[in-house]
């Protein structure tokens, strides 16, 4: 569903952000990309959303090349950023309606909005609240609500739990599980090894643009993921 083939990105200043990265995220799978700052996690998402072009290689969403046919590819993906920023002067409902209409979902009824708010754990009365009064956790949930309204087969999340309090983060993970059950292919970039271990079906470990390891859930379910991560990083360092 989300597929990267030998994806490479070298910026104008010469920095190699991605170095021949290949992997696939299947429907009903949560794939967490782990790595230090500058490892290339966000660059991957930026290429998938056509914010920047790849230097070589390809990225696909639902079989559509993200660089050659970005509008087609983006029909099948939703994006939840590290810090969901919506229109502060709009109410939650106005924000939902706008992004739903952009995704082609017109004429949604009140019950549709109520349902999605319930699903993400936001009170229905929040629909009438202006976004500027929302906490970060509420905004993140609303970001998921927008993704749910679009109902695409793939979801990209860039550091989605960053800055969330433990309760909000836990609620967020619950939402992710529900999305996985609905067959979504979810790619998450994160520094949060603790929560990656809780939610991921597979983790990819990145270092300086290279995907140095992919571990399945059974590899880290009963192990220390942080230790695995450190081991892979050191191994990659030694190879380099």
């Amino acid at each position, binding site marked *: 569903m989300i597929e990267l083939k030998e994806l490479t990105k070298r910026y104008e200043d010469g920095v190699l952000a991605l170095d021949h990265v290949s992997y696939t995220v299947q429907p009903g799978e949560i794939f967490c990309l782990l790595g230090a700052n500058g490892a290339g996690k966000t660059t991957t998402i930026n290429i998938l959303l056509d*914010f920047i072009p790849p230097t070589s290689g390809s990225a696909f969403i639902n079989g559509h090349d993200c660089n050659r046919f970005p509008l087609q590819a*983006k029909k099948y993906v939703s994006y939840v*950023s590290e810090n*969901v*920023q919506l*229109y502060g*002067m709009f109410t939650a409902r106005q924000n939902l309606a706008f992004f739903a209409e*952009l995704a082609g979902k017109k004429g949604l009824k009140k019950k549709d909005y109520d349902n999605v708010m319930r699903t993400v754990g936001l009170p229905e009365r929040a629909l009438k609240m202006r976004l500027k009064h929302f906490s970060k956790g509420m905004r993140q949930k609303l970001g998921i609500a927008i993704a749910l309204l679009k109902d695409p087969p793939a979801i990209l999340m860039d550091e989605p739990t960053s800055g969330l309090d433990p309760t909000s983060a836990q609620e967020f993970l619950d939402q992710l599980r529900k999305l996985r059950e609905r067959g979504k292919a979810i790619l998450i970039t994160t520094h949060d090894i603790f929560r990656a271990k809780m939610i991921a079906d597979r983790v990819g470990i990145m270092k300086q643009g290279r995907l140095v390891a992919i571990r399945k859930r059974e590899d880290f379910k009963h192990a220390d993921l942080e230790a695995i991560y450190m081991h892979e990083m050191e191994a990659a360092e030694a190879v380099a």
Partner: protein
Amino acid sequence: MLGTLVKKEITETILDMRFWIVTVLFLVLIPLGMYVSRKDYERRLANYQQEHQMYREHYGKDVGPFVEAQGFRPPPLLSIFALGLDPFMPDKAITSSSGLVRAAKEPGIDNPESLLFGKADYLFNVSFIVSLAALIFTFNRISGERERGTLRLIISGSVRRGEILLAKIVGNYIVLLVPFVIALLAALIILNTSADIPVWSSTLWGTLVAIILITLLFILAMVSLGICVSTLTHGSMASIMMLFLVWVMAVLGIPKMSPMIAEAVYPIESRNVVDLAARIAREDIEVEFNKKREELFEKCCTEFGTTWEDIAVEPRTDAEKQAYAKYDREVLALDSECQKRVANAIRKLEQDYRNRRNVQASLAVNLSRISPVSCCTYLVSGLCGTGPAEPDRFIRNAERYQEQVKAAIYDNWVVKIYRMGEPLPNIRVQQTEGFDQSKASIPEMKYEYTPIAEVLRTGWVDILLLFTFNVLFFAVAFWRFNKYDVR
């Protein structure tokens, strides 16, 4: 998709404090400016009517051969919208029997402060306030959304960047037009309360529609410019700096600097110098021909055995009558040649001056056309009869009036100069046959301002440029936004 984006832009702008500040500003300044301009026009009209009437009453029957008839220029009705060059335009044309017409401007300024600071008329409000509002509305529509992170979210969807850009222009344009149109309607209602101003008359309506259409085109150009500025920066602070730079250059820098640059690059002498040169040329020719007339008269007198120094104004003896008769026949050729040479000399000086003035003016106008504010100003002031074409228009009106007075008065007098020098000038003045001085009166000057069709015909460059600015700003914004880093 476009509809959704436009709707969002409209909602977002209406919820923004900027919209309400601009609305209050428009609702106060545009109707107030119109009210003050209306009062100013009524005062100028009353002054014109009073001066005109007093002149007709006291001097209207003065139709002597050397009368200096005065033709009055009424204040243009639409100067309420754009005062333009009106305060600097001559108020009247004064004719002369020599064939030269001169312009006169009353030096009295009733309210000098208003000229010192400029009038807050419709054109001022559009070119300064509305243009600034258009830029304030739009300067960070792209960069601000990028800063807030909402642009990433929109572009992560299946939305064309061109659509986002177009929606921003359309949405902000519509929102800006709402307070503008309300303020304009209020201003027109205020205008309509004056008995002197037939706002809804068919003659005025066409010009008003043209002014409003040009204004709408100008506002669209400024909105597009604001969006274009927004795509050139990646943050609101940088956008604000760019906004001030662009506004100052477009509204103040380019229009004000262009005439000064033109004067420096292509200097010409002043109008006063040209007028003085024309007067000197005329006097030199007249002195030369007066001498020739005296020689001719002396020759005629000698031929019939009389002495020219002794002849009084009226001939007495047969010899004197014969000398006069011969002189009257032969002097016609001299008079005609004198007039021709005076006219040619003045025409040449005038033409030279106008050619050089036109080069300088073209340079200034074309330089200033880099800014859409200049294009709008030329068109609107032209339609209001206060534009840069009006000084030439005044000269044409004055020359036509000179011809009118010549036909009505000067041509009905025959002035014969026999001797200009000592001991006394010998000049004979006669009325032509059929001319009744008691029934004659000084003709009225029928002043014609540039018609709307001519303004639009000569202003096609400015109309085309306003369209071009719209396309250009959108094209630059489109090009920039397609490469815009939304991260």
